[in-house]
């Protein structure tokens, strides 16, 4: 048997220095080259637009009070799809651990801070762009359904455009919160359970508290705080809630706490 050429044509000495742009490309290749990304994003679109349409149809069938918010109604699918983006946020990092890919990733790029920042940025960009398309689709379909009942709104009305874009921002923040838990726990099932618990179960459980307590607690619940950004009527008739951008900042604050803790651990833990 002949001795094979060892590594092929030699590379120039200057080639091969990692840069942030290169790592972004690498992470984009990773996210677009596995099927789970497409299935999850498809589920995101279907769930958001589907439930939004259902909620909009429901609005044409009943009475609506003074706090009826046609924009928020058409984006109602976000209550469910915040969990779908959460699943993707967990998977983009936990799959590195479940498959063992993280060992290859870190032996080819040992600068962990650079790698994890690029991964988070790429995921956030994918989540935001998909979220934007999804929210506009939900909005237009929902308004078309509600226009028959003359309760629809248009993008030019106050706060409507902010709320539709806010829906995409909300999804991105939920996704990054989930990404943080995925990095912290390094285990898909555990991280997804935690995210569902925090975004969903906590929101339901808080309703069981005495209403006087709720006024003080509700607005701090991550999902409830974040929801304000995709509502057009101030505080949705509930004075105890935060203003849209304040509420969104609270959600981002939670995500930042989890992310900072996760990245700090990631940088010093054995991989």
């Amino acid at each position, binding site marked *: 048997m002949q001795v*094979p050429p060892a590594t092929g044509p030699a590379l120039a000495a200057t080639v091969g220095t990692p840069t942030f742009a290169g790592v972004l490309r*690498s992470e984009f290749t990773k996210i677009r080259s596995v099927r789970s990304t497409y299935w999850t994003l498809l589920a995101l679109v279907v769930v958001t637009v589907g439930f939004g349409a259902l909620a909009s149809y429901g609005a044409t069938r009943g009475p609506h009070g003074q706090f009826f918010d046609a924009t928020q109604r058409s984006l109602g699918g976000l209550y469910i799809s915040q969990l779908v983006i959460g699943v993707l946020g967990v998977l983009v990092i936990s799959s590195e651990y479940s498959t*063992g890919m993280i060992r290859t990733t870190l032996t080819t790029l040992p600068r962990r801070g650079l790698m994890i920042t690029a991964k988070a940025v790429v995921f956030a960009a994918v989540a935001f762009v998909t979220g934007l398309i999804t929210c506009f689709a939900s909005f237009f379909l929902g308004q078309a359904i509600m226009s028959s009942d003359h309760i629809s709104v248009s993008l030019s009305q106050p706060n409507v455009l902010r709320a539709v874009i806010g829906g995409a921002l909300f999804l991105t923040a939920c996704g990054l919160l989930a990404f943080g838990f995925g990095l912290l726990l390094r285990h898909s099932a555990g991280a997804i359970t935690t995210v569902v618990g925090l975004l969903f179960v906590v929101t339901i459980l808080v309703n069981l508290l005495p209403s006087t307590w709720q006024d003080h607690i509700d607005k701090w619940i991550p999902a409830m705080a974040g929801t304000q950004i995709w509502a057009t009527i101030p505080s949705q008739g509930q004075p105890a809630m935060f203003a849209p951008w304040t509420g969104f900042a609270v959600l981002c604050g939670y995500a930042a706490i989890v992310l900072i803790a996760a990245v700090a651990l990631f940088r010093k833990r054995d991989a």
Partner: protein
Amino acid sequence: MIEARGLTKRYGETVAVDNLSFSVAPGKITGFLGPNGAGKTTTMRLILGLDRPTSGTVTIDGRPFTQVTQPMRQVGALLDAKALHGGRSAYNHLTCLAQSNNLPTSRVTEVLALVGLSDVARRRAKGFSLGMGQRLGIAAALLGDPQILMFDEPVNGLDPEGILWIRNLMKALAAEGRTVFVSSHLMSEMENTADHLLVIGRGKLIADCTVDEFISANSTLRVRVRTPQPDQLAKLVATAGGTVHEPGDGSIVISGLEPSQVGDLAYENSVRLHELAPLQASLEQAFMELTASSVEFRAGVPGGPGAGEQVLTGRAV
């Protein structure tokens, strides 16, 4: 050049790597030997910055690997062929690695051809056989045309053709002046490939020498003799400080004396010799003797280590 100084890694109470100091030089294949659980993989993880040492340092050309400027140009490593996302195609797997280090994506096509995976480049890696997975891992290690290559048990589970391929590849890489650091628990494999040996047992370095030095330093030299006067020779050998075994095939095996001493002894005392042959101890045997006290999990072998004379010439595994 890989350099470890006082490298130590503890997991709780367990000491996986215990105060290792060694260097791995370019231009040759350095075999990293030890029984299973001796700390070979942990040492490689420490070199690559996957784990942090409890104490001590390990550097690549003077820097910790986490601080090198061109990681894939400096080190190509195959720790575990299964350390990849099985849902990704071979091509995409290598592409994302190349992009992270700003290597031209034309390299991906080149290394796929080098390892013979061009035809399956677009197939998802989870459908690959063990041998194909190993080749993909090696393709990833070669992507950056690196100066240092590290392979952890690269021939595990491979067929003879695959083993030969990896052996030849490692020799070619070393001949080009690169550093090749390869771990194995198969002594026979190292005997055929390695130039230099680092032997560890229970996390401690127990030998750092060439293959020849290792064999001569760690095995008793034996001489096989055929003579019509065996009893006379046996007495002379015993007087001169050697010991005699009789394997039962008409020859006698002498240990503790050099072949020249045996020849001189026979000549001076007019004992006729029909055969005088030094017995080449295998690396396998030398290794068994050296690590006998440091094997973590040992099967209860009747007679214990060193009991059988048959390991002299044959290979035990």
